[in-house]
């Protein structure tokens, strides 16, 4: 004798609530996919317009009145030079600050102020860093509208976000490593140098790379420094000449801006091709950061 299966059915009100809940999933999913769609359309549109102009010549040519001959060479070289200055100037300061805050600073009101200050600096608009660089580096220190002034301005801009990422990485190192070193008689710096830093380096690297990729796309701050210029020479005669630091410059994002606001329609393809070059660089940096993060995920 087969037993009668018991069927539990939700009553009207409950059924309605459950239906609404089930449908809500698609509403939320749909909203999430809008962001994804924008990225896809953006990538497709850029490649569709820019692919025809994107070539090796485009990267190695100087700007020109003719859209087919124009290239982004000064922008690419300028970006590399400016970023080199930014990296050299910002990394030691950012790591030093993070170590001091996490490992050495006294826990009092002063450190709270330092932390609030950092959080705020990380949110200061880039154009404010631009006018700071204009007033301090370009005018006061008389560096003119140079690679050095641009690089130092971007360094000030990315230090706060790099510090915050480095702090996070240092906090992830288990306290037992520090305690062990200290118990064996290491000084505090020795424990930081040999136990904390080696374990925090992957996280710190990720933070630095993401900050540099932010700096690579920065436009407004460098326009304020005077990067919106027409350049037809390479910074510093090869191979490497440090006088180049005082040369005027432009960067890739500013060249893209120039092509974007150009009223001649054929230059739009150049803007797209420039964006392809810039995005390849930025996405490569982001990818490296993601790989490091996954590879060294330990604690």
């Amino acid at each position, binding site marked *: 004798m087969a037993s009668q299966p018991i069927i539990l059915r939700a009553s009207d009100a*409950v059924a309605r*609530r*459950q239906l*609404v*809940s089930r449908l809500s*999933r698609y*509403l939320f*999913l749909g*909203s*999430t996919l809008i*962001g994804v769609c924008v*990225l896809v359309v*953006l990538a497709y*549109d850029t490649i569709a317009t820019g692919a025809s102009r994107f070539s090796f010549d485009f990267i190695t040519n100087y700007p020109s009145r003719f859209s087919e001959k124009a290239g982004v060479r000064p922008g690419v070289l300028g970006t590399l030079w400016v970023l080199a200055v930014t990296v050299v100037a910002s990394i030691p*300061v950012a*790591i*030093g*600050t993070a170590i*001091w*805050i996490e490992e*050495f600073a006294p*826990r009092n009101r002063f450190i709270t102020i330092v932390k*609030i*200050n950092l*959080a*705020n600096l990380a*949110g*200061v*608009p880039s*154009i*404010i860093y631009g*006018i*700071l660089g204009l007033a301090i580096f370009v*005018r006061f220190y008389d560096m003119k509208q140079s690679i050095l002034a641009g690089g130092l301005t971007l360094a*000030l801009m990315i230090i706060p976000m790099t510090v915050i990422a480095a702090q996070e990485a240092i906090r992830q190192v288990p*306290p037992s490593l*520090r*305690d062990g070193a*200290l118990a064996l008689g290491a*000084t*505090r*710096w020795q424990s930081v140098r040999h136990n904390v830093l080696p374990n925090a380096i992957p996280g710190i690297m990720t933070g630095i790379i993401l900050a540099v*990729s932010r700096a690579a*796309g920065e*436009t*407004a701050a460098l*326009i*304020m420094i005077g990067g*919106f210029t027409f350049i037809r020479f390479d910074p510093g005669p090869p191979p490497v000449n440090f006088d180049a630091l005082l040369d005027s410059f432009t960067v890739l*994002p500013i060249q*893209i*801006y120039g092509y*974007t*606001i150009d009223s001649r329609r054929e230059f739009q393809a150049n*803007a797209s091709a420039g*964006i392809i070059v*810039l*995005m390849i660089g930025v996405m490569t940096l*982001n990818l490296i950061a*993601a790989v490091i993060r996954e590879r060294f995920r330990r604690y």
Partner: protein
Amino acid sequence: MSVTPESFGGMTEALRKRALGHPGEVLIMALLVSCAAVSLITTALIVGVLVRESATFFQDVSFSEFFLETEWQPLFEPVSFGIWELVAGTLNVTFWALVIAVPLGLATAVYLSEYAHPNTRKLLKPVLEALAGVPTVVYAYFGLTFVTQEVLRPLLGTENVPVFNALAASIMLAVMILPTIASISEDAMSNVPRDLREAAYGLGSTRLEVAIRVVFPAALSGIIASILLAIARVVGETMIVAILAGSTPNMTLNPLSGVQTMTGFMLQVGLGDTQRGTVDYQALFAVGMMLFLITLLFNIAAYFFVRRYREEYE
């Protein structure tokens, strides 16, 4: 247990003394402290430069003109420096960007935190993070050539949509802040303890009810923080508004008119070769001061909300 002054008391004191006896250790401490000083000096310099140059500006232009006039016309006669017209431009794009980005960002956060399968989440989060990594000049280009030309004009009629309009700027700003709102809110929602959800399910709530009535209120301080940070970013963003919204100051919240924002004006001055000492150059710093104060307000408010939600559940 970590070695902190609180936990180790006298022991740490002894260690610190020993460290200070070591000359190398003292040198390193001095280096680290000077690194940390850089950030404090940066803030001091920002404030110093803005105050000094604005002071010169206010010798030529009275406070009452700056804050009471309603017209911003620094380049043509009769010149007029009424900041509110620029503030209105910023308010316009900020308002419409939030109208678009807040619902979408929060819906994304709810989906990722409450609905998505862990694998889906693993797939979607990097895509959203990629949106955050796109340089804003790229968004500006996309807004000009695609959003205005291919979407807004066919949809609303070419005669209704000027080439430079606040709506295209707002849409691209919304895309820019979407990851900020989504990822910080998602973080806050994921941190809501499981017990709260399970108690609600046990009482017969559906998934939607748990998300809206339990998780959402519990994560509220994180959600507010994400929106405040997004506002600070929108107010300070330059390239998108400079390229898309135009350069005509306009006191309106109408999204279909061209406006100039505070940052838009600053970039306009930066593009020209304005000489130091001219009133335009000084106006740059006065507007910068206003911009700095507004973003400072939102950043500090966000800092305290973030700290509150961290304290609540971590």
